[in-house]
């Protein structure tokens, strides 16, 4: 309670004050909220976070599903073991290590990407490419988790259902649509919610790889909260920003649950 409920209430309270952590807090009313709406950097951070979250969910679920289907189908145990391990490894590596390593992987002169794709694009310094690049790095880091969850879900699909559909003359695609997907829908739903919530809270790769730049192109909500709260010491405004994150997560999660009634099989 002390570390969840109390800070939550405190965050609401703080959002009504101006405070630099040192002097006395000064009552500000709705000042912070007004600043929020007129602050273009906030809007940019919210947009970046949304783009990042949407792209993460689509790629995680899409590619994760293809992988899970592939690994589920393959017959050789060796392949299964290798692929599962290889895709899961990066998830075990801390974001700090991933972010540092990938700064080198992406280096325009001696990095792996530059060499194998034969480009000299400075991915992280480009206002156009920086955010998509972070999306790819996040994908590399986290896909193993989504993949394992989806694979576990796939393994719960009863073989008899497939048999029955086969007897009825359903081909591979049709069996996927009419059997696999409906049975797996709760798992897919869960993975979607979790990926969204995780993506909205993204912080580490921005701080380590791009510092939010170039020119705010990769700054996320959490990172902006951090900058305001712990670098420029506008504690009240930081609390207001964290409330924005809270509201966004609540709204999106609520919306997902509402929409889920249409497609998730109970």
């Amino acid at each position, binding site marked *: 309670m002390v*570390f*969840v*409920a*109390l*800070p*939550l209430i*405190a*965050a609401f309270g*703080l959002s009504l004050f101006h405070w630099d952590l040192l002097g006395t807090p000064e009552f500000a009313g709705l000042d912070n909220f007004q600043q929020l709406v007129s602050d273009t950097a906030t809007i940019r951070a919210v947009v970046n976070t949304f783009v990042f979250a949407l792209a993460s969910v689509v790629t995680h679920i899409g590619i994760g599903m293809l*992988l899970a289907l*592939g690994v589920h189908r*393959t*017959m050789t145990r060796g*392949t299964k073991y290798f*692929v599962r*391990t*290889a*895709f*899961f*490894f*990066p998830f*075990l*590596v*801390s*974001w*700090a*290590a991933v972010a*540092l390593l990938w700064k*080198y*992987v992406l280096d325009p002169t*001696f990095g*792996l990407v530059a*060499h194998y794709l034969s480009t000299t694009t400075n991915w992280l310094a480009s206002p156009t490419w920086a955010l998509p690049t972070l999306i790819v790095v996040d994908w*590399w880091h986290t896909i193993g988790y989504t993949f*394992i*969850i989806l*694979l*576990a*879900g796939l393994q*719960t699909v009863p073989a008899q259902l497939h048999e029955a559909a086969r007897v009825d003359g359903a081909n591979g695609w049709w069996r996927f649509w009419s059997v696999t997907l409906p049975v797996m829908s709760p798992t897919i739903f*869960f*993975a979607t919610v*979790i990926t969204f*919530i995780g993506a909205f*809270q993204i*912080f*580490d790769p921005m*701080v*380590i790889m791009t510092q939010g730049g170039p020119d705010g192109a990769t700054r996320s909500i*959490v990172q902006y*909260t*951090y900058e305001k*709260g712990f670098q420029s010491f506008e*504690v009240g405004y930081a*609390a207001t920003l*964290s409330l924005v*994150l*809270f509201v966004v*997560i*609540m709204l999106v999660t609520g919306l997902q649950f509402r929409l889920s009634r249409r497609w998730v099989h109970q």
Partner: protein
Amino acid sequence: MRGKVLDLVLVLGGLVMIAPLVWLVVNALSEPIDAFQLPPRWIPRPPTLENFQQVPDLIPFAQMAWNSLQIAVITTAGALFTSALAAYAFNRLRFPGRDQIFSVLLAALVVPVQLTVVPIFIMMRWLHLVDTTVAIWLPALVNVFGIFFLRQYISSIPRELDEAAIMDGASHFWILFRVILPLSRPGLTALGIFVFEASWNNFFWPYIFLSSPEKMTLPVGLVSLQGAVGGGPAVVLFAAITLVVLPILVLFLIFQRSFIASIASTGLRG
């Protein structure tokens, strides 16, 4: 035939996934002069441990590793203990408002830690705990996800078992520690692995609360090393990253089964 193609595609995908990690280790084992050559080398020749020996010159690596380990162990033990107690209470005890409190707790699952970090920072400053490892593990002792996860696990244990114990006059503590927890071992293991890994790799919290190098954990230490390296030998940074990454990869290879099972089951049950 189609199966062969599929296997090939999957294996190639797997190789691409681990390529950056192999590159990491190869460069960490290379003489500075041989490192980062193009086309990239995939086998170090001759392997050298020189870079690893230089890591302690740049950051207090052993101290940081000790801090990380200490925090991860305390967090894991604490979270397991409090989760077990709370999960038992929420599943087996009857008290007014139980289900309401539990739904509030569930809602807390989606509350981002970032929402609480500013108030907790103020709280920690007030308690003079900023820049101590206590600030890292204290808030992590109660793990909402853990309570939820273990409650699900405990609810699958037949009630007849503890009812029999109650008949014999056993206390709740006795039932929890002698009946329920021994039967929940797979669930406890899964949760333990999960919490340990999350704590070992945590960056956000230590980054905000710790500033002295000798108090930092490995992830924060690594990032500070990036600054220290500057234009210097990136191979030493690679050696340091390798030292951080390798133990957890080896642990994974040993505990692969329970690791995967823990992710799969926490995923499906959450």
